[in-house]
């Protein structure tokens, strides 16, 4: 793989001018990161597990129906089953999607540092930020491909149950991707400081947990300002500052609004572009952080 990738980059670099190499170099890196990524056994394992859970959700509800359908109207039970399928699948996509995102984001750079491929690549006419851009892009391609695969199977499972394409869920899947993007960017940044993927993986899990607990900081702030003691107020202000700076991944959880409210619901219409912008800004922060950290790395 490493010989193949360096050959590709070398050829790309020699064929094009400076401007071309700005785009083609990272793209070549992204392409081989993608090829490498889809061959990773851990990721394949996660993906297969998630597909198994999504596929299995229909069997789970079929089993439940035998205990409940006799007790109530069939219509409502079928809707309960569809809801349970939706919730299981959305949870499976969220859990396995985030695990895939963290593992791939945490491993792409450290693996190449570990097996020294990075030295060969950086000896080519390719700057470090281009290398990182290619790696980051490759990670995103893998994350998107996994998300698309899981979502497609989910939609098929739902179609088999309800007979309609849940097109609104596409919005939910899109927002889920931007949630993954933020976690991916910061995990990627941490991975640029490490020579092993263990630390960035743990860091990625913490980023996800912290991102989901930022509303807890807001609660701390609200409770803190109620108290008139100086220490409580100070803690409240620190919590509020962190609440503002840290990414709040709960913001992306709009599945219920998207699914259950009218399609032209004003808050949802306004929130979606704002959330996309929010995700992109944090992703840019994560990428630039990775740039700075990688630039300072002794190679």
């Amino acid at each position, binding site marked *: 793989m490493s010989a193949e990738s360096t050959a590709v980059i070398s050829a790309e670099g020699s064929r094009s001018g400076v401007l071309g190499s700005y785009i083609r170099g990272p793209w070549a890196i992204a392409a081989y990161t993608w090829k490498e990524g889809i061959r990773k056994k851990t990721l394949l394992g996660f993906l297969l597990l998630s597909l198994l859970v999504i596929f299995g959700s229909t069997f789970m509800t079929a089993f*439940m129906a035998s*205990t*409940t359908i006799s*007790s*109530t109207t069939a219509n*409502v039970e079928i*809707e*309960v089953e569809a*809801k*349970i399928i939706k*919730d*299981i699948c*959305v*949870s499976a996509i*969220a859990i396995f999607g985030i695990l895939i995102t963290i593992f791939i984001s945490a491993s792409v750079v450290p693996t190449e540092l570990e097996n020294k491929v990075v030295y060969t690549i950086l000896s080519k006419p390719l700057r470090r930020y281009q290398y990182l851009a290619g790696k980051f892009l490759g990670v995103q391609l893998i994350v998107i491909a996994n998300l698309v695969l899981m979502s497609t199977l989910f939609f098929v499972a739902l179609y088999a149950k309800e007979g309609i394409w849940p097109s609104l869920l596409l919005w939910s899947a899109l927002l889920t991707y931007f949630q993954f993007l933020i976690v991916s960017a910061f995990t990627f940044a941490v991975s640029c400081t490490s020579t092993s993927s263990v630390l960035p993986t743990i860091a990625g899990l913490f980023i996800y*947990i912290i991102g*989901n*607990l930022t*509303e*807890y900081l807001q*609660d*701390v702030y*609200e*409770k803190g300002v109620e108290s008139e003691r100086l220490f409580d107020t100070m803690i409240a202000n620190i919590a509020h500052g962190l*609440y*503002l*700076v840290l*990414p*709040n991944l*709960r*913001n992306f*959880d709009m*599945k*219920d609004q998207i*699914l*259950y*409210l*009218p399609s*032209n*619901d*004003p*808050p949802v219409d*306004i*929130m979606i572009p*704002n*959330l996309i*912008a*929010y995700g992109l*800004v*944090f992703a*840019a*922060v994560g990428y*630039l*952080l990775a*740039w*700075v950290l990688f*630039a*300072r790395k*002794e190679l």
Partner: protein
Amino acid sequence: MKPKSYTWHVIAAIVILLFLSTVQGARLSGLRETESFYRWVLSASLQSRLGQTLEPDEAPDLAEAMDEELFAKVLDLAEAGLPELPIEEDDFDNEDNPHHVLLRAARQDEDKLIYDLVASAEARPLQDEFHKHLANNLLQSAGTQFRAALLYDKETRVEGVGLTSLFFNFRNFAANLLWLQVDKFFHRGEMHRMLPLMRMSVALDPNFVDAYLLGAWHLAYNLTAQLPDTPEPLKKFHPKYKKRLGIKEEWYYVAADFLKDGIKKNPRDYRLYFDLGYAIYENKLIDHAKAVLYLTDARRYQHDTWVPRMLYLAMWRNGQYEDAIKGWGNYLEEIDPDSIPAIRFIQVNRGYLAEAKAAQADECKAAAQAARKRFAELADEARERGDLQQAGQHESEARIAQEVATEMTALAEEEWENARKIWTPMIQMDEDNIAIARLRRQKAMRNVSEGRYLEAVAELELARYEMLQSFDEISDLMIEVKQKAGLPLTTSELRAVERHREAALYETEDPPKKIRYIECTYLDETVDTEA
């Protein structure tokens, strides 16, 4: 390694982007807060339009609720901030006054207008007030759809921060697991253990509409099926519902409250309105007016075809015959031109309308005759006093009353005849049980007016078994006829009389207003006019 100069540029870019992300984060927070306020305004508008109070709980340890006060301020803001909207057929309250413009906007799905209003700078102080009250748990009409942490504060009294954050994004999944447990309890027959879990389940997932539907059904039907009826003296007065309730009725109201909570959180799901209107109010609480109210709302949102059918049936039972005829007519035009029930119930409602007009014409005739007698007496008194002008005036009024009585006699005859003309072909063509029962009932009433009480009772006896939906109504009529004729009552009739007597002793509500089908100045002026 010494950082290169562009590294500082990147660091500067990071700082700028972090600042931007903070701004965007604050903006999203603001949007979330506006969203909560907007959803509360929508929900409160809906509750207000349906005549529900925004502060229903009577928990003694609860601080004063601020819902009504805050909503009044929102209404004032909307008065000035919303454009004038057309007043449509459903935009009137019980007193026939048009609804407030905000309530109309919510009913007419003018979501963008409402959102722009609540997101405006003028609404900012109200939004802040809303969040302050929400944080202090002072809004009873707002619930876990805004802050799931309220669940813990309210139900388990755990003080502290939002524990539900710990569920990450898997609250819905947790709600499903709880619901499976509810289902297990149901199959084990441990109904009493279901309610807390049902509440927890919908608190975790406020959009779990099926849990509301099944939960209410369990409460109102399965749980109460095993309970005995409560004798009238043992019923307790419930200030919240302003009614004396037995054990069964208490559960019906718990089910109704459960569905109302679902409506608050999912105001545009027709199934909640339908179940509340049809399954609870129509079939369990036998409150046809409320059933019509909620079924009308169920029809407003995307719904199945049985919704209008049940609405028109509820209208029929509520005495809104003209509305039901119009509704069934629309059903034939728009949904199913060959619908046999629609064709049948148009005829049934016409028959009932004719009978109702005839019955009210008879009442009006009696009232007019009484008025004529009274005016004649007054005229005599005035003449005795020597006040001829006053006497002349009373004589004139007595003449008018006599004319009305004559007119009403003719109208009653005409309408009874109309009803007969409707019922007879229905019997000849389909042996329609409603038509048979109504015709027998009519015959019985004629027998009563002619003093043939035994024959009347015999006809009513047959009528009540023809149409079991009217069994109680016709049985009561039989008792009335027997009492009038001095005939002995059966044991079950004596028990029914005793039940009615007891119920009357404990009656706490005003009787429902009668719908007026004809114009009659001699009848009670306070009754409603349907026409």
